């Protein structure tokens, strides 16, 4: 079995669906002959032709809106937004149409589309290329937000997203695109949406994270394991709606919760996790919920990028803080 980088697993998932479902089309800026600027659609146009894998004019609102129109007519568009900072022109279409077409037509029309976009920083990219904006989409009713954190999960979750009859915003951490290769079986097996993944079990503290920060979170957990601290690491995977059952079960066991995310802290998805746990499991909590997050500033240009992003040290410190209580 081939060892794949996450970006290759993503390509493989799209190829699988293009192969098996004639309704699937891939579209976006430079996704054709160029294979996408991150090469996520590498080779797909060559293999499936220009009518299945289409370059679009340079217009993100168009990409989202046209996908909605195609989806409502029975196709399954998988649209790519080129970099994280250019997804904002899609907001209007996603909140006003994609997320509500099914409910406003009481089921007459629906929108089986996927909006794929890179997410997050850490690769010394230019301005506007390193944003984390999952919270914006998480607040939109009718939209699912999914963020993979490994090649296998990327493969399985993207298959699920494409097959799901409702709109999914699929945010891919660019920092993970090419590290940590895994064996990924190309078996067309989807992973469940709306479900967390417990990546590591432990009894002392629950760590909830998603996307690229899973990486630092796991490293912090490993570090603390050396000191005898058992960290349970949960990958949200579906960032909205959140699978709270898994999280609450874990917190009831550990009594402690640290949330790690790269996006700015204020009104980030971490707030929802903390708030719901504080509502539903306050009597289990033996310490305040801790959030280790990006600061409330735009992602700086890359000389300060490292200072913006939650480091393993910051995660460890956050864990220690909740353990001290």
């Amino acid at each position, binding site marked *: 079995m081939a060892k794949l980088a996450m970006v290759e697993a993503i390509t493989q998932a799209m190829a699988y669906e293009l192969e098996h479902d004639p309704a699937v*089309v891939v579209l976006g800026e430079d996704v054709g002959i160029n294979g996408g600027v991150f090469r996520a659609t590498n080779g797909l146009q060559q293999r499936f032709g220009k*009518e299945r894998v289409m370059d*679009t*004019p340079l*217009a993100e*609102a*168009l990409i*989202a*809106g*046209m*996908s*909605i*129109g*195609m*989806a*409502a*007519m*029975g*196709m399954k*568009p998988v649209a790519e937004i080129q970099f994280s900072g250019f997804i904002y022109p899609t907001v*209007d*279409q996603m909140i*006003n*149409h994609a997320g509500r077409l*099914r*409910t*406003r*037509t*009481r*089921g*007459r*029309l*629906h929108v089986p589309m996927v909006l794929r976009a890179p997410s997050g920083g850490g690769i010394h990219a230019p301005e506007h290329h390193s944003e984390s904006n999952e919270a914006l989409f998480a607040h939109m*009713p*009718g939209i*699912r937000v999914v963020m993979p954190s490994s090649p296998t999960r990327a493969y399985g979750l993207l298959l699920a997203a494409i097959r*799901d*009859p*409702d709109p999914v915003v699929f945010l891919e951490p660019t920092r993970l695109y090419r590290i940590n290769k895994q064996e990924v079986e190309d078996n067309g097996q989807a992973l469940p949406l*709306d479900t967390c993944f417990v990546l590591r079990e432990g009894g002392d503290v629950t760590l909830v994270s998603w996307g690229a920060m899973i990486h630092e979170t796991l490293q912090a957990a490993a570090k603390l394991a050396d000191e005898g601290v058992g960290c349970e690491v949960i990958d949200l995977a579906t960032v909205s*709606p*959140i*699978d*709270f*059952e898994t999280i609450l079960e874990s917190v009831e066991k550990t009594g402690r919760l640290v949330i790690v995310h790269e996006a700015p802290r204020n009104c980030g998805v971490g707030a929802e996790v903390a708030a719901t746990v504080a509502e539903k499991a306050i009597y289990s909590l033996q310490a305040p919920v801790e959030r280790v997050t990006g600061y409330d500033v735009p992602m700086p240009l890359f000389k300060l990028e490292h200072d913006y992003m939650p480091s393993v040290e910051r995660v460890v410190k956050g864990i220690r803080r909740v353990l001290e209580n």
Partner: protein
Amino acid sequence: MKTVAAFEIKFRQYLDPQGKLTQKPLPRFAQDPGELVKMYRMMSLVRVFDTKAIALQRTGQLGTYASSLGHEATHVGIGAAMKPEDAFFPMYREYGAQFWRGVQPHEVLLFWGGDERGNVFSGPKHDFSWCVPIATQYHHAAGAALAFKLRREKRAAVAVIGDGGTSQGDFYESLNAAGAYQLPAVFVVTNNKWAISVPLAAQTACETLAQKAVAGGFEGVQVDGNDIIAVRDTMEYALDKARSGKGPTLIEALTYRISDHTTADDATRYRGKDEVEDAKRKEPLIRIRKYLMDIDAWDQKKEEQLVAECAAQIDAEVKLYKDTGKPPVTSMFDHMFANLPESLVEQRAAAIAEEEQHG
């Protein structure tokens, strides 16, 4: 200096405001008086509907309502030219086109009466329903047209926008994409001279809105939007072109919003009586009726009968509307996703409990 590109915008009209022909021969459909009568009847029905809807709103029986008074030729002309398998992407006042396509008047009332079930209408199942965020539906039409093209279906997507809507980026983006992909799409601009209180001259420096097609690299045509023969003919031309793979067309239909913008608006705040009076003299029903009378396809007796029929039909529709009860509170949740996530299951239960307790 060398000229590297040149463009012209043409104006199309068959019937002048007095009902006189300005051009011959007539398009094939217009050579059949029966067909013209059918269109005229629909225009009349829409107008009766419109009056009734405004009355309902004024008496607290309907929410804010957007009148189509004065737009009947444009709307019915669009509807009559389309085939059922084409897809329609309206803005919010194209009842004439929608009725032709099977949407029932009470369904329109449900929508403006605050009930989503109006969107589950009797028109073609693939038609989009009313689109309030201006210009966003143009993208949906482009997407649908792309789907038809990719699947090699002989279908076209038709989208309608207002003069104000042509200031939105979405409008141009979809025109440009339609040109680039050579999509089977027909884009209509209903130029009724006003976007709420903003007159056309404040909206754009363009002499015509049809010329916006130049930015998409395809044909733009201006048509007398109060002349149903010209509207339908131009639509048929553009639809044929679209279905036969020759790309998109932008049609600017010149008409006038005789009513207030919606029932929440008071047009006397921003425009004079004279232009409205002038517009009333040029409105679309007068001229087709005159023409039909001139060719002996219509008379006063038929007119009286029609008025009575329309009134009866709309009254029956109003009754259907009024007899529709409040939608169940659960309907807020049940169509959010095909597979309802746990959090919504919980909220749904809470909302039911709430309703049972407090109504």
